[in-house]
């Protein structure tokens, strides 16, 4: 689960990380008031959306007077932000962050993720702050210094000293940066983060250490023990069909193509997308109905797939193990009756109770249904039908 920049700042602030003062507003008039309250010669107005590319899209702007703040705030809240990460229709901005512009002397990166290969959290720091860490990793990997955490011990003082010295900091600045690293590691472990980064962490011209921008995301699997984190969830940032699927215990991701997919199992669902592509089609979605799927759940899955106006055909691919083929067949028959199929639905069933399911579908005689013998046959048939 991702949160907004202002929410990440709040978390950092609560953990004792030095963060510049800021205001969060949701209207142009509030923005004007915030500018007056901050009482600074120059502020930065930043749109609060999860998508990146805000700067290039004109949604991070420096302003020097109240009317400039108000004008930019009004524009950002009115026009959806379109960036490389948002798609052509863009995302609606509902909140803005306003903070004093900082006179930056040096910029650093500090961040923490799970190192999958070493199976523990790793803190990464770099003197090349303000740019994406992936970019640094690709161009100049030696600029990134890492320390791995023992999950029981956390980030140890000697590790902090090594990281701080790698950034070339000394004295009070070293101390402040070290405290920030310790706090970030503590947030990561205590709140079950999957990513916690401050980029950039800056040293101002007056020598102060400040966290200017932060990105934190959380392990979805651990949200059950963090109601405070779950409360930060912003449904407006999610695809409505993905939210609807989540509520029905389905795993759904919207894609650009025109062939809807209904599959059991994540690996098989990904491979079904792959085989569609291999035969010249493009998938409209990823959908894993899961192992313990009910008829009602599978009917909802059809509703979600068919609500996507781009869908010109559907491929149902079930390898019944725990999920039973007859449950899917019943869902197909119910969906045909209640939702109605206006596009061809190619069905490939194998595994548990497959004979019963095939008989049920034969008896139901749904005209849009196309039976397929195997995976290749199914992919060819659905690609030919759209």
């Amino acid at each position, binding site marked *: 689960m991702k949160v907004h920049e202002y929410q990440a700042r709040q978390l950092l602030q609560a953990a004792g990380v030095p963060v510049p003062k800021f205001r969060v507003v949701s209207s142009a008039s509030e923005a004007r008031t915030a500018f007056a309250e901050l009482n600074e010669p120059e502020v930065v107005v930043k749109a609060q959306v999860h998508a990146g590319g805000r700067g290039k899209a004109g949604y991070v702007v420096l302003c020097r007077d109240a009317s400039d703040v108000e004008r930019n705030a009004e524009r950002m809240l009115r026009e959806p932000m379109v960036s490389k990460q948002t798609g052509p229709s863009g995302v609606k901005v509902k909140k803005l962050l306003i903070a004093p512009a900082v006179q930056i002397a040096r910029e650093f990166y500090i961040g923490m993720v799970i190192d999958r290969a070493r199976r523990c*959290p790793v803190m990464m720091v770099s003197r090349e702050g303000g740019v994406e860490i992936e970019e640094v990793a690709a161009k100049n990997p030696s600029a990134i210094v890492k320390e791995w955490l023992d999950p029981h011990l956390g980030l140890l003082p000697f590790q902090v000293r090594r990281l701080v010295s790698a950034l070339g900091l000394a004295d009070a600045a070293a101390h402040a940066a070290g405290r920030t690293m310790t706090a970030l590691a503590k947030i990561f472990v205590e709140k*079950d983060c999957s990513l916690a980064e401050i980029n950039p962490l800056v040293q101002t011209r007056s020598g102060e250490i400040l966290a200017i921008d932060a990105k934190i995301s959380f*392990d979805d699997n*651990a949200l*059950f023990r963090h109601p405070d984190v779950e409360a930060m969830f912003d449904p407006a940032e999610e695809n409505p069909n993905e939210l609807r699927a989540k509520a029905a215990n389905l795993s759904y991701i919207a894609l650009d193509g025109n062939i809807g997919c209904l599959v059991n*199992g994540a*690996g098989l669902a990904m491979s079904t997308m792959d085989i569609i592509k291999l035969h010249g089609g493009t998938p409209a979605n990823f959908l894993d109905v899961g192992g313990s799927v009910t008829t009602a759940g599978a009917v909802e899955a059809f509703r979600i797939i068919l609500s996507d106006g781009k869908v010109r055909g559907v491929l149902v691919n079930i*390898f019944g193990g725990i999920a039973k083929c007859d449950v899917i067949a019943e869902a197909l028959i119910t969906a045909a009756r209640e939702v109605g199929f206006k596009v061809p639905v190619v069905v490939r069933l194998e595994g548990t109770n497959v004979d019963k399911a095939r008989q049920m579908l034969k008896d139901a005689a749904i005209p849009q249904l196309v039976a397929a013998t195997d995976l*290749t046959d199914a992919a060819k048939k659905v690609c030919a039908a759209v």
Partner: protein
Amino acid sequence: MSILVDRTTRVICHGITGNAGAFHTAQCLEYGTQIVGGVVPGKGGTKSEHGLPVFNSAFDAVRETGANCSMVFVPAAFAADSAMEAAAAGIRLVVLITEGVPTLDMVRCRKYLDERGTQLIGPNCPGIITPGQAKIGIMPGYIHKPPAAGTKNIGLISRSGTLTYEAVWQCTTRGIAQTTCVGIGGDPVKGLNFIELLAMFEKDAETHAIILIGEIGGTDEEAAAAYIRANVRKPVVAFIAGQTAPPGKRMGHAGAIISGGEGTAASKIAALKEAGIHVATSPAEIGSTMAKVLSVA
């Protein structure tokens, strides 16, 4: 022969009285697995619906039944604790089926198990099956084919569930048998991985070839490719799921995500091909690719 489990493996089920635990214990028993009891705190001294003894703790269960393997079905919030309890009680192999376990729980759990020499399969996995001998997990048993005189046999390692069934079925229908199939799970931090299992299959005399099923996310397949090139003489057929998956999106499995330019199917396929591994381009061609490699008509 087989790896890790066989007909002598004595299994206890954590969560044997829950819906999933009870259902799959019945399925495993029917397959012939030696399930010798269950662990449910607070229900010690009772019998499960299968007539098996239920114990309050893994310690009691191990002492009374001589179990050496745990199959864990408890809810995600308690799953890591069950696995660690099993290890503390002296269990040698834990099969953790549960989906949705917090990653940091697995970081701690894996370290705890490593320190006690207990092996882990999972979490978020279908489990392990040695066809004809023992099924410890949720895979449908009947799709598998046990080795027999004259059969060509494969070992299988996979990050997926149903895609594994698909691959197994494609082999079985071509007469190719399986020594052992291991679903290592779809989470970012897990137990046994490709490399350890490749080493076991390489040593197993009855296994003639190996199927490796990977997916997007992480770099385990790249590491496996390097290991195979240096250490594995048996032929390997691989398939990577998620060639069309968009970056930055979790594709169902917690570990199936392309992030920071890492974990793409293209990078994995390139590494595997470079190591001389036969990569099936279509998920429908895993069995036929293996049949060609083994010269099975």
